[in-house]
């Protein structure tokens, strides 16, 4: 049974994407990006575009987005659009804050998973059980979760030391550690200021120092998701339910059950993303998620509904967010030049197929270069826009190459297979 569905999936996949990225290609691309950043640093003098501090900040910014996106990935692979990620994440932050300050951060993580899964369960009941429009249910869950977190926070945190209706008492964060050997060596090379080599070492140092177990778990979850969804029977069934529920049902797969499981996992992952935010800032705070659930969804779409792509997408948003925090005006200003180069490349690639759009992107590149030359810095309010503008731009450039699960967002009634 599984081979037929697998064959159909593979066929659908190959007709759309002609090139599957292989390891050498990915590594080359990574090296290319680092080279570009190194060049950018030398040309513009913006030291923070590739420093270890920026990389560390980027991971901190990227992980909650990535985990929320991973939640979106699970739901949408099973055919359920989950715009309620933001609300599930809010439930996660409350759970982590509430249990975290009383029994420690690990209890916080457990409750964040639980509360997120509960919200996911509500979404599953509404969309799968009752066949409500997925976006409608998601919007409602966002409203309920926000209200619930605010109401419960007022009850749970008022009167406790450091707590109040909008903030929990301090949560003791997890301890951090460096990867022995690698982090120090990378640090000393990064200090040497060698072109490219030091940039690479700075990035490695950022990736291997001051880590927490939660960060590692977050990264491992990407691998685990890939393995479960693409290498196990269970995952194949989840995906088959998202591609063609009628075909899956005719083969004996319980469509509802797999959708329920996937959406509940989705909620739990979004909750975990919330827990990560609490661990990072050591408190629950109202409005802490700041739309990261939505950005996670965008990162997942950018990543073509795949864990690797999602990791790249959330990394990009995390990176632009980190630049904003680390000497934002100067760094984002430097980014303009990089963007112009990318637009030119894009324009050239498009030139034969679509003259008009190639010209548009070339025009945008010229504008950016002019902007880069006439200004020294980007104003604070504008650097705040960087992650959102990047999201829009990236989606505008790449949306047409994307392929979402075929039955994504569609309501399926049991027995429709006939």
């Amino acid at each position, binding site marked *: 049974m599984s081979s037929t569905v697998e064959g159909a999936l593979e066929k659908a996949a190959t007709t759309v994407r002609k090139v599957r990225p292989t390891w050498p290609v990915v590594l080359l691309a990574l090296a290319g990006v680092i080279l570009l950043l190194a060049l950018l640093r030398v040309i513009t003098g913006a030291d923070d575009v590739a420093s270890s501090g920026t990389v560390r900040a980027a991971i901190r910014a990227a992980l909650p987005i990535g985990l929320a996106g991973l939640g979106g990935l699970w739901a949408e692979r099973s055919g359920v659009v989950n715009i309620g990620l933001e609300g599930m994440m809010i439930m996660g932050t409350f759970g982590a804050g509430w249990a975290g300050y009383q029994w420690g951060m690990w209890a916080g993580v457990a409750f964040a998973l639980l509360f997120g899964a509960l919200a996911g369960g509500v979404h599953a009941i509404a969309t799968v059980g009752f066949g409500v429009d997925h976006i409608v249910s998601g919007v409602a869950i966002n409203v309920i979760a926000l209200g619930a977190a605010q109401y419960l926070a007022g009850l749970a945190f008022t009167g406790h030391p450091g707590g109040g209706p909008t903030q929990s008492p301090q949560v003791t964060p997890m301890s951090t550690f460096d990867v022995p050997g690698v982090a120090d060596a990378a640090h000393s090379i990064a200090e040497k200021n060698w072109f490219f080599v030091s940039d690479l070492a700075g990035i490695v140092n950022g990736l291997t120092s001051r880590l927490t177990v939660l960060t590692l778990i977050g990264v491992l979850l990407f691998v685990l998701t890939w393995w479960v969804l693409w290498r196990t029977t269970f995952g194949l069934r989840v995906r088959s339910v998202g591609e063609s529920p009628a075909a899956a049902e005719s083969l004996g797969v319980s469509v509802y059950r797999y959708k329920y499981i996937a959406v509940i996992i989705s909620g739990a992952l979004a909750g975990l993303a919330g827990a990560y935010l609490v661990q990072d800032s050591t408190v629950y705070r109202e409005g802490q998620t700041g739309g990261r659930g939505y950005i996670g969804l965008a990162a997942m779409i950018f990543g073509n509904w795949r864990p690797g792509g999602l990791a790249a997408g959330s990394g990009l948003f995390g990176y632009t967010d980190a630049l904003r925090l680390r000497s934002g005006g100067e760094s984002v200003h430097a980014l303009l030049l990089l963007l112009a180069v990318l637009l030119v490349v894009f324009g050239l690639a498009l030139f034969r197929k679509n003259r008009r759009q190639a010209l548009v992107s070339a025009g945008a590149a010229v504008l950016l270069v002019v902007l880069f030359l006439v200004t020294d810095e980007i104003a604070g309010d504008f650097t705040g*826009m960087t992650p959102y503008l990047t999201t829009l731009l990236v989606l505008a450039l790449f949306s047409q190459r994307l392929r979402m699960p075929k039955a994504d967002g569609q309501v399926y009634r049991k027995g429709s297979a006939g």
Partner: protein
Amino acid sequence: MTFDPRKAGLTLAAPLLAIVFAVLVTSIVLAAAGDPVGTVWQTIFTQPRPRNVVNIINAASVLYLSALAAAVGFRMNLFNIGVDGQYRIAAFAAAYVAGEAWMPGKLNVLFSILVAVVVGALWAGIAGLLKVTRGVSEVISTIMLNSIATALVAYFLRQVAEKGSNNIHTTTIPASSQLAGFKLVGDAPNAIYTLSVLAVLAGIFYWLLLNRTVFGFNLRATGMSESAAVASGVSVKKMVVVSMLISGGVAGLIGMPLLFGDAYNYGLTFQTGLGFAGIAVALLGRNHPVGIALAALLFAFLNEQSNSLQLKAGVSNDIVNIMQGVIVLSVVIAYEVVRRYNNAAEQRRVAAQLAASRQAEEVPA
């Protein structure tokens, strides 16, 4: 379409059931948290005083505009989540223009409203264009545009505000352009916003547009079956852009009653979050102009009445958000259940008729 009393009854039963269910869920939450359930409902369901009635009408008219903006898109399965950003950027632009007072008195008001509509439409149009030219989901792009609007407005606000002042806002609009409002409710000290009439006008416009124009027909057809609409010659791309423009234009109106009736400038304290509330109201009212009006009144009523919860019952008024969210979710579930029930009933009826006519045919043979 013939009037079917049973069907109409079911349509009305769904929202009522949902409200009862929401009251139930909220009660359970309150009881579990150890809050006084009875006092809460007593506070919310007392008769509002005249002052509160005016507040409810004002809030409802604003919510109504917000919901209409979302509903235009919903009717063709276009999810404009960006009403929030559209109304804020439009309200800022209108407040700036009104403050500069390039035109005298009431003409200034009209001109500013026009500016708001155009700015709102253009901001929403970005998402429409991105969707039809580059295939970007409008859900994602409008959410991103919300955040970008926030940053843009913050930036421009700082540019136009008086330097050195803590209270950052646009120039206050001249007295000749401020609108006093209607004193309709007997002895209430406050007045209903003059520009609440915009809500009524927009409601009529929405109904006419959808039910009496070719565009409205095409819009509804696209929403019900895109492939059928395409087959009958509807340009879906054009529909997407135009409906986004209309949706954003209506969103531009949201801030107007408040701007000219109470706030008189756009500052950091200008009311936010109306866009998301509007989405919920539109869903509750099933995108129908009358349904939305009822839903807007209900939401405004709940918001206004819950203000005294903290004082009278010692309960945070955040509980109302839970209730509103549960109402929205349970109402769509209720509609879905009713729809399925109707479908099944219809099938049974047709089957019975068919069987009867077949029998009638077989008898003479």
